[in-house]
């Protein structure tokens, strides 16, 4: 069993789990598109508030949510520091020869609001979905079959390869390997990565052999039990109204 946290879905409220996965994927996409198009801080702020509400209602535990958002906030911090100094405009304050512009700060804040809103919406709607179900949903949404298959193979084998990595790494540690900044360390890591590549390649050959043994003819077949229900339509409509409201605030105000 793989212990890779990347592919363990977050806990979610029952109502999200019962939604048609296609609705969740499409809604997340629409929300992302709408939020990215926003240009005013008021609308972006409202979008962030609504997305936070959605995330809370979707039952993503705040602990997990914060941990996943932290990965994003690192980038945001860089933006907040860099943008005021790189966007031209009236100076807000100066640090020696560098001056921070008001326009730059405003743009940085807008991006932070929008990025967090999108991340919250995606985490709430897609983050709690079993990756395999996401693959099925993408296939049903007519995403090209090759891309879906690549995604599903990744989900299937990233854990297997990670386990191989862990075993090799343990074997190194068992022989007293400690990473340092020297030639020996870099060479050892080189071998580790090379060995992983070789093993992955060999495994892919064995997988193809096993597929041939079962008469593989180039087609993949997926079974899903998606069923669109009236409540999915209702939820979709509610989300659409919310998106329209935010866009109205943006353009009307």
């Amino acid at each position, binding site marked *: 069993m793989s212990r890779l946290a990347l592919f363990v879905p977050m806990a979610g409220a029952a109502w999200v789990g019962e939604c048609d996965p296609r609705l969740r994927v499409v809604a997340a996409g629409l929300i992302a598109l709408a939020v990215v198009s926003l240009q005013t801080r008021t609308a972006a702020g409202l979008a962030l508030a609504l997305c936070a509400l959605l995330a809370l209602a979707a039952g993503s535990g705040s602990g997990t949510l914060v941990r996943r958002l932290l990965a994003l906030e690192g980038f945001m911090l860089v933006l907040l520091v860099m943008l005021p100094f790189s966007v031209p405009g009236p100076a807000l304050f100066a640090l020696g020869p560098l001056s921070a512009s008001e326009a730059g700060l405003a743009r940085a804040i807008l991006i932070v609001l929008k990025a967090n809103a999108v991340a919250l919406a995606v985490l709430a709607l897609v983050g709690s979905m079993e990756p395999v179900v996401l693959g099925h949903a993408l296939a049903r949404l007519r995403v090209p079959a090759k891309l879906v298959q690549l995604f599903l193979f990744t989900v299937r084998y990233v*854990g297997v390869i990670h386990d191989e990595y862990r075993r090799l790494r343990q074997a190194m540690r068992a022989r007293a390997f400690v990473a340092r900044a020297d030639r020996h360390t870099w060479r050892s890591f080189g071998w580790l990565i090379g060995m992983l590549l070789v093993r992955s390649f060999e495994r892919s050959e064995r997988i193809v052999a096993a597929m041939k043994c079962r008469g593989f003819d180039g087609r993949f077949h997926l079974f899903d039990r998606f069923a669109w229900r009236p409540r999915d339509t209702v939820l979709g409509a509610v989300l659409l109204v919310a998106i329209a409201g935010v866009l109205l605030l943006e353009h009307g105000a």
Partner: protein
Amino acid sequence: MKQPLLELSGLRFGFAGRAVLDGVDFALHAGERVALIGANGAGKTSLLHLMVGLHRPSAGRIRAFGAERACEEDFREVRARAGLLFQDSDDQLFCPTVLEDVAFGPLNLGRTPREAQAIALHTLGLLGLADFAERVTHRLSGGEKRLVALAAVLAMQPEVLLMDEPTNGLDERAEERLIRYLEGSSLAMVFVSHDRRLVERLATRAVVLENGRLGEAVLHAHAYSHAALHAHARAHDLS
């Protein structure tokens, strides 16, 4: 005597510049369960792979199900009728869910999705895995993976079962479940194994691969440990 299901004659095969098989003769008849034993690296896995055309021999002939088999086209039919269970189930289970994986073979054999699903569910039921259909393959335990992989092979309704260390890495309970199923099956089998319990309970005869050649091994309850270590052609008291 009836024609054998699989027949290898004078098979030679080399790997990375090293001769692995050097004139192997072998025949599998209906109802036989043959244990294939031999030291690590003796070429047991290669021999299984040769039987279904995953490798090509450098010399020798392969007959399967009453016909000479030489090219990829020939072996496609062989693979449908002789199911191979791989040593590492992670190589075999590549579909997202158990149901999809077990139905993969039947679909490739031209069944409709509905038929394939019915066959898959039936096969899972035979192995006591009926509740597993919706499970995600990469979240199964090692023992579960092996049984699902076996179900995936059996769903193609093969006439011969080829197994590469089927009990390797299984705990006692999973092994018992697997052996019990295999004991009750009437399929002809060839299986590679170092597992004494499996060989003793399942095999009707054993062959040993040594120095690139295949010899009969003596098989009875207490002499097996003996047979596993070195092959003998000499007679044992079988009583």
